[in-house]
């Protein structure tokens, strides 16, 4: 009986180990299936012209699969979103963790969390029917479906991520550090700016990275509000012109391509680029976070 029981425990542990490793297996499968279908493209199409091509005309003859306009579209929209959401997010996190009374903070936090729950297609819808017409009117544009609209919507979507992680980072600074500064006659703001923020910096950087990862991978919202013109955006005027991101390209075109065609594989290639980019961003955020935890515990 003892033998049987030990056997059973061992078996259970082994099973649990494999289930625990499932996420690794899935990640490997994603790489495998994504890259396999992507690499097929390069048997008929040059890798160089994919990476450096400035034109995305998949239905032209011969078809052109240039990544650059899509990549720049993604970068532009994401960059715009980060410019809006980082200052807003970090200052909001400061307010919640350093200035607001506990009562106010405990109301604000779940209220802002609502933003994290709203589906991206609803954001897209809101951007399309509310924000875009207003932007068109205010900025006197020919269409409201421009990069800026996407940036604003993405910024709102990235806010809860940035706020909650920054807030965690700021709150985890021991109060003794704050008290030390205040006791020397520094104002609240000086304490926040010179002591608390530097100490929380790596946590905040991780928050920004994760917000960026979220923004660059967002699909439905940008697809619905950025106009989807596959042209290389001008800098800086491209922000008020229509652009097309990598995510939107995949979502828009995948429904119409014959499975297994060159175009199909080109979309997988775009997906692979997207996957690698977000993978690196997440990895960086993870490493920063880990370093920062180590730093706090080490002292």
């Amino acid at each position: 009986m003892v033998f049987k029981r030990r056997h059973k425990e061992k078996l259970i542990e082994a099973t649990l180990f494999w289930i625990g490793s499932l996420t690794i297996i899935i990640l490997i499968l994603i790489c495998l299936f994504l890259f396999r279908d992507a690499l097929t493209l390069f048997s008929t199409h040059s890798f160089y012209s994919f990476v450096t091509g400035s034109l995305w005309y998949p239905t032209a003859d011969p078809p052109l699969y240039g990544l650059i306009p899509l990549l720049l579209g993604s970068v532009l929209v994401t960059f715009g979103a980060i410019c809006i959401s980082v200052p807003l997010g970090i200052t909001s996190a400061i307010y919640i963790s350093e200035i607001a009374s506990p009562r106010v903070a405990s109301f604000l936090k779940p209220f802002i969390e609502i933003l994290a729950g709203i589906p991206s297609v609803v954001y897209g819808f809101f951007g399309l029917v509310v924000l875009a017409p207003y932007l068109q009117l205010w900025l006197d544009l020919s269409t409201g479906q421009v990069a800026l609209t996407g940036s604003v919507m993405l910024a709102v979507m990235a806010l809860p991520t940035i706020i909650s992680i920054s807030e965690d980072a700021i709150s985890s600074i021991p109060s003794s550090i704050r008290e030390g500064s205040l006791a020397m006659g520094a104002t609240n703001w000086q304490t926040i700016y010179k002591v608390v923020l530097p100490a929380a910096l790596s946590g905040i950087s991780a928050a920004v990275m994760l917000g960026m990862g979220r923004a660059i991978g967002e699909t439905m919202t940008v697809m619905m509000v950025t106009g989807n013109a596959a042209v290389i955006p001008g800098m800086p005027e491209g922000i008020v012109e229509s652009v097309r991101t990598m995510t939107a390209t995949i979502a828009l075109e995948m429904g119409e391509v014959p499975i297994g065609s060159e175009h199909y594989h080109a979309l997988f290639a775009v997906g692979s680029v997207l996957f690698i980019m977000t993978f690196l961003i997440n990895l960086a955020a993870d490493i920063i976070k880990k370093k920062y935890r180590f730093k706090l515990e080490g002292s």
Partner: protein
Amino acid sequence: MNVNAKLTEKIAFGFIGASIFTVVLFVCIILYYIISNGYPALSWEFFTSMPRNRMMEGGIYPALIGTISLIIGSMLAALPFGILAAVYLNEYAKPGKIKWVIEMAINNLAGTPSVVFGLFGLALFVRYFGFGPSVIAASLTLGILVLPIVIRSSQEALLAVPMEYRQASLALGVTRWQTTKSMVLPAALPGIVTGSILSIGRVAGETAPILFTGAAYFLPRVPNSIFDQFMALPYHLYVLATSGIDIEGTRHIQYGTALVLLLVVLGVNSIAILIRRHYKKKLRLN
């Protein structure tokens, strides 16, 4: 100098106040537009009738049923694996390389764009496994998408179970698995349920992963098997808002659908919060 510092503080706090106000304003404006415009569209008939006249009239019944099928399917896929993976990580795994790699994989999976999951689902479930565009292919894709959420929240729930319970149980001569099964999991259950409910919200709202794995533009019936295509609320909203026959004319249906989506997600999240509050009291955790 003192006056200067005071002034700087005032200005800085002014900016901070303005910024939190902006954030709150965003939330209010979005909620206001969706709720005030969507509310008039809601009726019993809206929920229970088929779209009519090339989706220019009628309700959202098939999309609602489709979304519910996706929720059930993806939960069946994600819950057992997610919870057991969390059990492995929290109750069994020794700190070290393997655990670190798994945690890393979870983080990366959580950060992978949803459209990439769509591509993956297309390549693996639709094509490789030959399910075709179907409820099962989309459910499995969404199941993988929410797996990190289920694992993370289950881990948190397991962590909240005091170490003493485990010790006491082990000291009674109870094996580790029996301790986990009879002691730790029941105590962690409310937390696990909360997390799973949050992932329901995610499943209900995701669009990109189902685009290529089975969502139908229009289907005048509910899916009759798990290998059938389906309509889903978020895709329905997308279709009506961007490529419907009369985009302006069906605004009220669009707002109504958006509101239903919002209500599903927010409702589910509020239920999660209530459950957590109720059981926190009962179990005296924390």
